[in-house]
């Protein structure tokens, strides 16, 4: 990593959702603030700024990280992926997103981007998880609205543990 003076503003360049972007920032700027306010990617949310809630989860080079515990500079030159990248052409929801809608896995939606980014990484690395494993990973996130039942149902559908044609929530 390059060395900088703490008071000197620096140009930070990274790839956000496949596109090269850059902006000036103080070296102490958090990645969450940089994404939201410097690059305009407001889909990533901030719920605690102390690493507990998981709202701010993004991926750096494919690995889920908490952007509130990461400095923008640490993402210099790397691939950052956020919730805005998930839907397909024309806004078509991907399998995980669709499962969330099917099972009413979100209410206010504030925690949702972080959970989606965690599991996009997790399910890529472990495509055949058990319910217990899903629960463990979800344990790294706080949702205040749903009571988690819908989220678990959605994750099970996305992980192929339940049949996508029999959602428990919507579409009665």
């Amino acid at each position, binding site marked *: 990593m390059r060395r900088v003076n703490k008071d000197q503003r620096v140009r930070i360049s990274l790839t956000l959702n496949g596109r090269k972007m850059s902006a000036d920032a*103080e070296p*102490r*700027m958090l990645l969450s603030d940089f994404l*939201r306010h410097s690059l305009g*990617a*407001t*889909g*990533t*949310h*901030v*719920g*605690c*700024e*102390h690493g*507990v*809630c998981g*709202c701010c989860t993004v991926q750096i080079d494919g690995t889920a990280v908490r952007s509130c515990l990461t400095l923008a500079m640490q993402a210099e030159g790397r691939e950052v992926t*956020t*919730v*805005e990248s*998930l*839907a397909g052409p024309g*806004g078509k*929801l991907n399998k995980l*997103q669709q499962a*969330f*809608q*099917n099972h*009413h896995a*979100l*209410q*206010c*939606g*504030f*925690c*949702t*981007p972080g959970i*989606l980014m965690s599991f996009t990484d997790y399910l890529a690395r472990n495509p055949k998880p058990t319910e217990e494993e899903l*629960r463990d990973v*979800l*344990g*790294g*996130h*706080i*949702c*205040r*609205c*749903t*009571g*988690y*039942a*819908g*989220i*678990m149902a959605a994750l099970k559908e996305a992980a192929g543990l339940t049949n996508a044609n029999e959602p428990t*929530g*919507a*579409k*009665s």
Partner: protein
Amino acid sequence: MSQRLGTSVARKEDPALLSGRGRYADDLPVPAGTLHAHVIRSPHPHADIVSIDPAEALAKDGVWAVITGDDIRKISDPFLVALKSPIHQWSLAVDRVRFAGEPVALVVAESRYLAEDAAELVQIEYAPLEAIVDPVAACKPSAPILHPDAKTNEVSVRKFAYGDTKSAFERADRIVKLTVDFHRLSFTPMECFVAVAQYNPANDSYDCMANFQGPFSTHPVMARALRVPGPKMRLRIPPDSGGSFGIKLSVFPYVVLAALAAKITGRPVKWVEDRAEHLLAASSGPNRVTEIEAAVTKDGKILGLKMDQLEDYGAFLRAPMPGPLYRMHGAVTGGYDVPNIDVINRVVLTNKMPASLIRGFGGPQLYLALERLVQRIAIELGLDHLEVIKRNLVPPEKFPYHAAAGSLYDSGDYPRAVETAIGGGRLDYLKKRRDEARAAGRKYGIGFAVVVEPAMSNMGYLSTLLTPEARDKAGPKNGATSMVTVNLDPLGAVSVTADVTVQGQGHETVLAQIVAEQLGLTPGDVDVTLEMDTAKDQWSIAAGTYSCRFTPGTAVAAHMAASQIAAKLKGIAAKQLNVLPDDVELVGGRIRSRSNPDNAVSFSRIAGTSHWSPVMLPDGMAPVISETGVWNPPELAPPSGDDRINTSFTYGFVFDMCGIEIDPITYQVKVDRYVSMHDAGKILNPMIADGQIRGAFAQGVAAALYEEFVTNEEGAFLTGTFADYLVPTVSEIPEVEIIHQETPSPFTPLGAKGLAEGNCMSVPACIANAIADALGVKDVQLPATPRRIHALMAQHGGVR
């Protein structure tokens, strides 16, 4: 797939929220030149402010202002309070701080990072005073007084008597007494507070944006504090909000603070709260000490009740406090047919963060006391808990039922709901599990809780706080107005606005369902926009999203607005189809003759008529471009001369039952099985309804077992991070089996009642009863943490 009202239509909100396209307060653009604010907060729970020296901070580049209480008292007034008592709160502390975390100064700078840096350079000298945090001690004459002008911390005492409680207690076979303490907590939405404000000196007006949730009765409070008429305090509320649960009402003092900062600096000002500030100072539910006693016959019939409720609102009484003490007032006898009750309501102030709105709003406190008492009645009389419940439930033939303190319960069949819930082998299962556990020497208990769940508050309920004479002087307060507007565009597209604030309840979807149903369209054909602008949208003081007002209120207004549109479109179509209006129906995007369905025209053609050819409308018809449904049910009368008040409009029913086991090693309370029975009248969207129930259930579990704001005796706040304040994750939330019964409300055209708060009220009581059953104890303090359970068991010889 059916899209009709009453089916689980998928949420219209979801695609945007799942794609990072939500528009929450901190996502919205701000005006050019916006400055950023940081609040400096008191480290002391009680102290005089001796001096504030901002010089060093102001010398820093990019710092525009350090604003103090002395600055804002010159240009603003204290917030209006429901109580006529000299309890003055401005948006910054003036002269004295009264809780740890109270805003003392505001640093305004070019960036938030700069503002936070500069805050460290502001020198503030305090002279600490003795703090008082215990509500009972705060009422003693020796206690330090928070607001010297009020001369006491116990700022309101009201006594109510309904029926003949004295003779009920004389007739009783036994008196059963209990003291119950409900703790402090908050449901901490994942999005914190945001406020942005601009000031226009040309016409002395403010333009503000905040994730405020209502009630809009707070709008006049903000405008008065800013010394402007309401229209000069424009408030915009974003289209999305990251949860609220009552908490985001309490952004309002910060809206005023940002507005004043905008006036002082001459620049737009934005403030975003962080989590540490939120936990420390945003809002808390009030803690309450209830002394409750029942006069009972030996077979368990409750003849009369006495309740003495002491509610602790912290350092100030913010509008609309003391709401939690009065919101349940008419329904204070819960699900039971008890004609005689005496109630004493006391309001006390202590050196803790001010209490305010929180989901359940007075229900959790009431039902913990009442339902624990009913369990104690069973124990003391040697009866079965469930039998005592059944003996006292309001019988179905008494509906609509006039409760002793004034609530008019609209509909219900409580005994049938209880029978259904315990049936299907569910209670047998719990009993079997308990027997097995106990035979093996483990601690297992079964709990029940009965809750009447009010929805849509009477705007007059808080005036019960005043004596009848004082109410007469102040003028009557009552009712609750809901408003929804349905618009037709030139091509016949339908759009809707409504007097609610978005928080995640799926209102967009349900409003689209309701309107589509009336117009013969699908929910996908109806666009709903719920961001709010007080300068341009329709609203009354009742507007906002709180106290479950959507289903009995706004949903009905939507139904009315759409019906009004439908009736007029029928008139227009009748002329074109050459039939009578009565023969016209709206079906599947067509408007057609009932008797000859081939005689039809498209919906959009008729709907566009008023734009393109208003002259062709039937004789005397005004153009049909937008219709507002205004709903104000007559049942919401003001408090009567004898203090009876129908506090809410609809009353749902919840019956909960659970089995819990105490882990012998960790002393954790483990929920083995939980059943929740709901009668909320007609269900508009079952998926969304169950989502609300599950969310409330999780918060009820949190209140029962995990979450507590802890302030030590000196007034220091000890739960300032999510590492200390334990919000449950997925592993802590047990499964809940939800059962529905539908007894439609006769008072609303949709027959639907509120249901999103009931489990916040029932779960703490149900789990506390199960713990009492498991351990054979009388006093169960929540949250029932392992430390508390261990102490209880040690005290009762249950620790091995």
